[in-house]
């Protein structure tokens, strides 16, 4: 299996995580450029249907790495099973989505194999026969191209939204599926996870909102949230925030956008005083139109904004509310 690219798709509680299609898209693109064969793997218990779903895409083969010990997910179980599987197959490149689950086990897996992982990449480059992986650094202020200087297997994870999941190519015919029984002896899995749950009330489903006005540290004080709320109201949208605002208790946690909050893609995302740390950007960069108002012209949020206003939000928002009200009234 040398020189193969293996995409490990993610399943959680028996369901395929859609972000896996993004990783598969990346795998297909790299395969097309390098000529390396592309295969995929699903890890877990009772994952036949997921393997079938993946086999419908343009991929050489799908492995279902099965064991009853892999349900529920634990980093010990997944790393153990994948170590076994990869030691036998030795792919050149392993691609995974940079999800919370992958972050939990992938560094352990790579270390167990004496290899390394380039995590949280947003793209790749194929230059002179070499693969470079692009990742953000210093909170998105810089990008870096990183290469592997050691022997394969090479591990890479891609950031949510780095590739288009809807562009994943379907296969001409269903790919063959091979079920591999993982041997996970007793004692390997040390953690005992409980059921997953949501905190008491998740009143708001921001994913359904068409318009979102989101505030960040630049709002400065809790009382200024009111101003953003007025704008949201005038626009007929929902109020949301970056993590620090919710951490401070200025808005409830269910209003948080970003890697640890909700991922949204509204028609309009209006960011007030949000600098645009990666953790926030991954939760909203799919928005159709992004408007950013920030006094710092260097704020990374402007990198992804469609409309940018560099200035004091406390000066701009009040007349904006008036203008919006006027426009709506007209």
């Amino acid at each position: 299996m040398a020189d193969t690219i293996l995409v490990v798709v993610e399943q959680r509680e028996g369901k395929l995580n859609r972000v896996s299609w993004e990783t598969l898209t990346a795998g297909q693109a790299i395969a097309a450029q390098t000529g390396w064969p592309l295969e995929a793997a699903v890890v877990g218990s009772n994952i036949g249907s997921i393997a079938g779903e993946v086999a419908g895409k343009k991929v050489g083969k799908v492995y279902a790495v099965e064991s009853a010990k892999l349900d529920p997910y634990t980093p010990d179980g997944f790393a153990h099973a994948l170590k076994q599987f990869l030691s036998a197959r030795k792919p050149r490149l392993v691609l995974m989505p940079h999800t919370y689950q992958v972050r939990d086990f992938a560094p352990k897996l790579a270390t167990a194999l004496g290899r390394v992982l380039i995590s949280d990449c947003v793209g790749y480059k194929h230059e002179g026969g070499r693969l470079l992986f692009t990742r953000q650094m210093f909170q998105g202020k810089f990008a870096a191209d990183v290469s592997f200087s050691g022997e394969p297997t090479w591990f890479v994870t891609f950031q949510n939204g780095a590739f288009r999941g809807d562009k994943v190519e379907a296969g001409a015919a269903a790919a063959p599926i091979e079920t591999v029984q993982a041997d996970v002896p007793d004692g390997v899995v040390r953690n005992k996870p409980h059921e997953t749950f949501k905190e008491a009330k998740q009143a708001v489903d921001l994913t359904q909102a068409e318009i979102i006005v989101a505030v960040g540290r630049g709002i400065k004080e809790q009382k200024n949230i009111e101003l953003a709320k007025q704008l949201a109201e005038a626009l007929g949208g929902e109020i949301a925030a970056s993590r620090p605002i919710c951490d401070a208790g200025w808005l409830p946690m269910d209003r948080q956008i970003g890697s640890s909050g909700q991922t949204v893609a509204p028609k309009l995302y209006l960011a007030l005083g949000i600098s645009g740390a990666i953790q926030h950007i991954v939760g909203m960069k799919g928005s159709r139109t992004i408007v950013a108002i920030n006094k710092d012209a260097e704020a990374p949020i402007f990198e992804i904004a469609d409309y940018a206003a560099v200035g004091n939000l406390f000066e701009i928002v009040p007349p904006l509310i008036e203008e919006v009200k006027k426009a709506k009234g007209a």
Partner: protein
Amino acid sequence: MKILVCMKQVPQKDAPLKLNESGTWIREDVSYEVNEPDAYALEEALRQKEKHGGEVVVITAGPARSQQVLREALAKGADRAIHLEDPAFVGLDAINTARAFAAAIKDEKFDLIFTGLQSDDYGYAQTGVILAELLGWPHATIIMQIEKADGGIRVKRELEAGYFQFVDMPLPAVLTIQSGINKLRYATLIGIKQAKNKPLRKVALAEVQDALSPNLLKLERLYVPQKTKNTEVLQGSAGEIAKKLTEKLRNEVRVL
């Protein structure tokens, strides 16, 4: 409980960063601060100690300037510190950093090791998990709560999209701590005075060199990211910007 907290010094959040001449790293003449998630990790360790007793030890790897994060941690209540002091530590990849930490604490017996969930400079989010693997310990990531339980601990992991999960695990263990798990304290004047007399062990690169191997990944170049979007900058006074933006929202975005 004896807890080790791994901490890192990173450029200040609002510091204007510039690339060095060779485009391989930033220019180092900026202000530094404690990596924010690490500050939460320290705070959580101090709270655990206040609840259950024990000791909090802090460790960092970096040049002389990074001693500042240790002094700050000592002033906030950590009992002692370990400084792997060498500029070369800045350039280590996650696995070598973890190896260096593991080598530096080989004679110690900790119940828990905390790290922040990721650093604000590299942002690999790997060191803690790798350290657990090197030590042969269980781990859990992105932790929002830690309680003592029979024979170990019960932790609350943060999952995506607002989900959480409790996990029971034995000790010793490594936990990566999420920002916002608690409210950070300030260093008190008494704490600052006492910090001066707390032990700080320095570990030279040579002492852990044997545990390290060449980096298996290479940062080829660092650069200002290219814009992928065509951003239209709205100019003018606040009132003019408000007017222009409203027009755009009406005629182009069509949400009004």
